[in-house]
């Protein structure tokens, strides 16, 4: 009896998740900007995955352009031409997409984890803890983000991982505030009150009511942090604080700029990474905004 009960519950939970997912999917499919974002994103995802098929990793090595002309225009051999030391731009672009995405996503994970924890705690806890967390959040909200990220990058080093952590560490404040606000509204909800009246402890309330309630918001918010993280990465790399040995898109722009490619119109060197940054940021932004529209509790009720 009991087992059958819990099986049904589990089945029901899964059915609900499936349904929730298919609802989101359905709504997303009908949300044109969001769907375009998703398509763009899948395109970039495939692009990043296909890196080994397009170019060998060794073509990223400095010496790999040994026998190639420098800054050669696109040709059948080099679809996007070569850079100033004769390396295939396409190879760097495709492997760079991995670096940019990796940094963007890892930074987002860091930001979302910190942001969610702080947001949840600040929203749920009362009194001094909440005040202290809020003050910290306020602080990170006003501290100028780029200088702080640069300084931290200088301190912690330049590997993609540390860069991602730095970016994540400096960009959680907004989501913490957002999540806190949502937690506050959620804990005012009558069903949370009801759970408390049923004798529920904080743990139950957080796990059963608050977390599932903020999860969609966290997802939507995360989708919107990725593009800022990618932009930050490209800015840091462009300013020369990126990892020199990882060909991220920002690094490519830095290379293009310092080698004078813009002036001699080697468009194949600076336009592709620039457009890729715009494209991926646009993709995540479109998707994130669509998810926000879909998940937004204010719009849901109407």
């Amino acid at each position, binding site marked *: 009896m009991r087992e059958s009960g819990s099986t049904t519950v589990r089945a029901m939970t899964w059915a609900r998740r499936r349904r929730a997912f298919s609802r989101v999917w359905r709504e997303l499919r009908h949300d044109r900007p969001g769907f375009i974002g998703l398509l763009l994103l899948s395109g970039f995802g495939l692009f990043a995955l296909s890196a080994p098929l397009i170019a060998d990793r060794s073509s990223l090595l*400095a010496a790999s352009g040994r026998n190639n002309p420098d800054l050669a225009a696109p040709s059948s051999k080099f679809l996007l031409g070569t850079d*100033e030391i004769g390396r295939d731009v396409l190879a760097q672009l495709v492997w760079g997409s991995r670096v940019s995405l990796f940094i963007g996503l890892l930074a987002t994970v860091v930001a979302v984890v910190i942001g969610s924890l702080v947001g949840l705690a600040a929203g749920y806890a009362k009194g001094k803890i909440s005040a202290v967390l809020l003050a910290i959040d306020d602080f990170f909200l006003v501290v100028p983000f780029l200088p702080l990220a640069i300084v931290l990058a200088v301190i912690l080093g330049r590997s993609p991982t540390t860069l991602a952590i730095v970016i994540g560490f400096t960009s959680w404040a907004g989501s913490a505030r957002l999540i806190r606000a949502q937690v506050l509204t959620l804990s005012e909800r009558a069903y949370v009150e009801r759970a408390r009246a049923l004798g529920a402890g904080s743990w139950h309330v957080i796990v059963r009511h608050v977390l599932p309630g903020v999860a969609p918001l966290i997802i939507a918010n995360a989708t919107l942090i990725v593009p800022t993280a990618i932009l930050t990465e490209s800015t840091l790399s462009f300013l020369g604080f990126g990892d*020199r040995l990882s060909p991220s898109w920002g690094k490519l722009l830095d290379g293009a700029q310092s080698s*004078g490619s*813009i*002036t001699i119109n080697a468009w194949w060197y600076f336009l592709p990474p620039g457009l890729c940054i715009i494209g991926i940021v646009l993709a995540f932004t479109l998707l994130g905004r669509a998810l926000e529209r879909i998940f937004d509790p204010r719009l849901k009720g109407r």
Partner: protein
Amino acid sequence: MSRRALGFIATGALGFGLLAAGLATNASAQDKLVFSVGVTQDIDSLNVTVGYLVIDFEIWNLTLPSLTDRSAEDFSTLPSMAESWTASDDGLTWRYKLREGLKWSDGEPMTADDVVYTITRAVADGWINHRSDLANITATAIDSRTVQVVSAVPDPKLPYLGSYILPKHVYEKISTEEMPNYLADDNVSGGPFQIVERKEGEFVRLARNPNWHGKKPTIDEVVFRMYETAEAQFNALKAGDLDAIDDVPVKLFASVAAGEVENIIGLAGNQGSFSELAINSGCAKGIGDGHVALKDRKVRQAINWAIDRQLLVDKILSGFGVPAVSLIPSANPAFDMKISADEAYSYDPAKANALLDEAGWKDSNNDGVRDKDGVELKLRYYDRSTAGATATTPFLTGWLKDVGIATDVKTFDEDSLIAEQSKSEFDLYTWGWTPYVDPDNMLSYFTTSQVPTDPDVGGYNDANWCNDEFDALYLKQNSELDPTKRAELIQQMHEIFFDEAPYAVLYKYDNLQAFRSDRWQNFTRQPSDVGPVLFSQSSPVYRDLEPVGTRGGSSGTNTMIIVIVALVVAGGVLVALANRRKEDPDDRQ
């Protein structure tokens, strides 16, 4: 349309108006003949006791006098402050006779006192830029126009004495303690130009010094303008904002050299500047904590064999330079090492591997990195954050990895890197030198006496390398007055340096400079035909430059057109916005 919307439009129109007005100022109403030079390096310090960048030297060359000058053609010694000189028989004592009526730019007389004061204080306080020239020298004033210089040892450099002479009446007020912080903003000049305006990080403007004793330059003013990127600087040259630029990115220079850019010529000058990978050789008399493996000559040689210098020249210099294997001690190529191509270091990873194996560094744990007695061959590799300085790093680290040497790359600002070097706490680091004309300086840097022994004092021996034989040879050439014999001694020093390999000298690079050929002519190179125009040893070009025809003119008309276009656009936008109101559907029922 509501008042608010009008407010928006008004603000927009104001913006447009300002932009248009801004455009109108491009017209230059300059009647002075100004030569604008773009540089990507900001001035380090105009204080001759602390500055060390080439831009600092360029400005000192223009503002500070010296007893003798160098010819533009072949660096031969020319009179400057001194109109003549005589030597004692032993060649140790020299008397310089100063020109008559020398004056500083502020009108104070320039006398033997100034010379003696400068030399004496420079020796006493150990000023870096005077140190090597004056190491063994004492000076006394015989009268106000005669200076007697005594060298403790025979000095092949004399009678050339190019040390900058400072105005005593200014510098005697500055204590030794205050000296490092002195801004050198006195603007008292004894050279052809004097500083008239300086905005840090922006520009330095120099005007002709009326009290200059030499040839009167044609140009009225020289402006050095700082740019953050070489690209922006190049664009400024193209746009006509600048007349000359240094440090043209190689690819841009290639296009200029190919004649693809109108009105601009490129001159690739060589004065022996080279880049190297310094290897901490762990001199027993020095301090520091270099990797144990690097104390082994074979390992250092292996590093030299692992590097493809020709590829660096092709890719990083686009061919504007040549591979190098030993020190370039002088701007004069006559002092370069003489070595046959098959003996010189070349790209031979097999040889590098063999040498490393021989030295006992083998990859016993198969992690791709060689090791010995439990120590991994993993080296701290430091480079500079200076723009462009890091280009070689991916190449070098890649090649080192190929032969089983791991690297841990860290980037420093130049000051911090020098601090690390002063402590000799590094394994490998990249740096570059631009040698003087006389090889003595460059050679002196690798004597034991220049090995850092106190981090606060440091030393030029940045490979932390010492060799008694080299030291002995150095002292010999230092007092060898016969040029042929001296050249032989230097060649012997080269051989030791080559074999000991404290450096992996990478290449000798050209200074890539570009000029407005439609505006200027007479680009004096030093030395003639091969040397650079800007940032040369004694900067003669500024005295020789001549304008081509008349300047300016075209930008004015351009600007007028733009002003009109901008006004029309602004007007159009206003009208369109105003009309919009009528098109608005009245209500949204």
